[in-house]
């Protein structure tokens, strides 16, 4: 496995938990984003994820680096699955090991927020009566560093 990867197979959380654990770690947080059946009263049949794979892996690694700078002493692994995912399947896993629990929680939540902002991955929801690519529309930034 790579610590920051896009995968096509089911995600095994234990693998990422094992990777981040180290003797100075007193706390490990694992987050998984799973396919939810109901969203605002609409039933999802399944999801389809697509990624710009090399850039997505690069951005995941950058997020990991940001985290290790903000919370020294942590170790991070992130994987996102693409392709067709069924209800309850894991789309994303974030594993963080830290000396103390506060930073393990904070860093983990930071990671999922950043993934939803900058990593080129797209989700299509497929319902009984239609389908749609999801993504909140944001105007192209005119100046400054993009998407920081």
């Amino acid at each position, binding site marked *: 496995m790579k610590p920051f990867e896009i995968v096509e197979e089911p995600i095994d959380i234990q693998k990422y938990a094992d990777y981040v654990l180290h003797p100075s770690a007193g706390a490990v947080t694992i987050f998984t*984003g799973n396919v939810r059946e109901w969203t605002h009263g609409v039933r999802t049949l399944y999801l389809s*994820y*697509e*990624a*710009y794979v*090399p*850039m*997505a892996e*690069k951005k995941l690694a950058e997020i990991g680096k940001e985290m290790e700078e903000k919370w020294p002493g942590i170790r991070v692994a992130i994987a*996102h699955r693409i392709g067709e995912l069924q209800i309850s399947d894991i*789309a*994303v896993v974030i594993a963080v090991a830290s000396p103390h629990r506060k930073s393990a929680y904070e860093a983990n939540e930071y990671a*999922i927020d950043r*993934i*939803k*902002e*900058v*990593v*080129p*991955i*797209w*989700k*299509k929801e497929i319902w009984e009566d239609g389908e749609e*690519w*999801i*993504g*909140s*529309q*944001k*105007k*192209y*930034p*005119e*100046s400054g560093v*993009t*998407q920081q």
Partner: protein
Amino acid sequence: MIKLHYFARLRELTGKGEEMLERDEITVRELLEWAETTYPGFGADYVQVAVNEEYTLLDDIIQSGDVCAFIPPVSGG
């Protein structure tokens, strides 16, 4: 020659995953205008351009040999 990648909604709209654009140099703004003209409904106002796997600004210049990707609003996680 500039390589262009299309993903998600844009891949379905254009009917292709990638293509080559015969230009030596073009700004990101010009590339988005070209895409909007070539593919009606492209929605360039809400699409970012990555060049060689990095996000860009509208005035950045793309050169022959660069690999570009149109990035519609992301929705991972």
